[in-house]
């Protein structure tokens, strides 16, 4: 059976190459992606919002995102909002200026203190990831996790990169205007493989799945459902 892509948190680091804090954002994001929450997180390069296609720009609509910036210019947070969608969380490294920037090292080589800041920022990211996914760690004891514990599952060796992932984007006519939906083919495929016929009986289930990844304005639900159902009918017809 086709699997609907699992909901993950997108981590977008500014990666600012000219300052140590930018390197901190990159290394902290990688630590979360590779080791701390490898199965719950995914990333995309910030410039791909501009250089990529519509599928890449749908990233922040598909994933709740955490923007990690090295300075108050907040390029990652602002760029994500400008091209894709407002980040759920915006973190700025050393925003309270509690650490002397020069002691973090250089953009090319961080010092031990710089690596400590990487640990701190990775911890902040993990906390937000768990909150966004409502993860309850340590279920045996009923205690939600707040720290940096490493998941028992084997970690992938590379960060899950969504570069060029091309999250499918479909434009439909809804009540006379064009509306862009994401992930429809994934949703249709799952329902189709489950033997769900394109009739009224599947409409609620279909729209529940659609609303996970798309915003459906109040008052327009019937029009959205009609357009999506028509598309599902066409999808099923092509499959036969």
């Amino acid at each position: 059976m086709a699997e609907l892509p699992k909901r993950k948190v997108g981590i977008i680091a500014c990666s600012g190459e000219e300052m140590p804090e930018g390197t901190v954002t990159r290394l902290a994001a990688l630590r979360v992606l590779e080791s701390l929450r490898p199965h719950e997180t995914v990333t995309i390069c910030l410039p791909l919002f501009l250089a990529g296609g519509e599928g890449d720009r749908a990233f922040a609509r598909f994933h709740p995102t955490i923007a990690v910036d090295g300075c108050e210019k907040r390029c990652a947070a602002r760029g994500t909002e400008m091209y894709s969608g407002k980040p759920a969380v915006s973190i700025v490294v050393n925003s309270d200026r509690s650490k002397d920037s020069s002691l973090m090292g250089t953009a090319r080589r961080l010092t031990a203190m710089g690596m400590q800041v990487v640990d701190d920022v990775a911890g902040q990211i993990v906390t937000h990831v768990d909150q966004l996914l409502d993860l309850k760690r340590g279920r045996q004891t009923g205690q939600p996790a707040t720290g940096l514990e490493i998941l028992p599952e084997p970690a992938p060796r590379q960060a899950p990169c969504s570069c060029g992932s091309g999250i499918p984007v479909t434009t439909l006519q809804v009540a006379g205007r064009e509306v862009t939906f994401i992930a429809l083919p994934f949703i249709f495929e799952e329902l189709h493989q489950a033997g769900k016929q394109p009739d009224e009986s599947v409409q609620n289930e279909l729209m529940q799945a659609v609303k996970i990844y798309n915003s459906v304005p109040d008052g327009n639900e019937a029009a959205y459902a009609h357009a999506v159902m028509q598309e599902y009918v066409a999808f099923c017809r092509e499959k036969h």
Partner: protein
Amino acid sequence: MKQKILIVPCSGIGKSYGSVAREAGYVVTEDLCPEKTRLVPLALLVLGGEEAASELGEAKAITIDGCKHACAAKVVAESGGTVAHALDVPTVFRRHRHLKPSGIAELDENGHKLAQVLAEEIKERIDGTDGEVRHG
């Protein structure tokens, strides 16, 4: 006084080639041609508008991309900058296949060697024209 040439590397964090691009940018701007070049963070250019325009100014840019998406070259061009040369790591790697890089947060030895080779290619282009890069 001549304007410094802008070196704009890929800011990718998902592939070794992105790390090679970034390291090559550091080798050029810190080790090989610090007087003639300046590193520009790609993230700032993504925002476009006046911020990007003031960062780029009238200077020529050499972009170093890590993959076929060519974000650095595209973003500089979209921001109104002048891309004098658009280089990419995979193309350089194809000429030096014995230097297959690995690692992202920490590049391996091959990654550093490939970055050095790429940086020296950039230096040749800069030196060969007395600080003024040739248009590619």
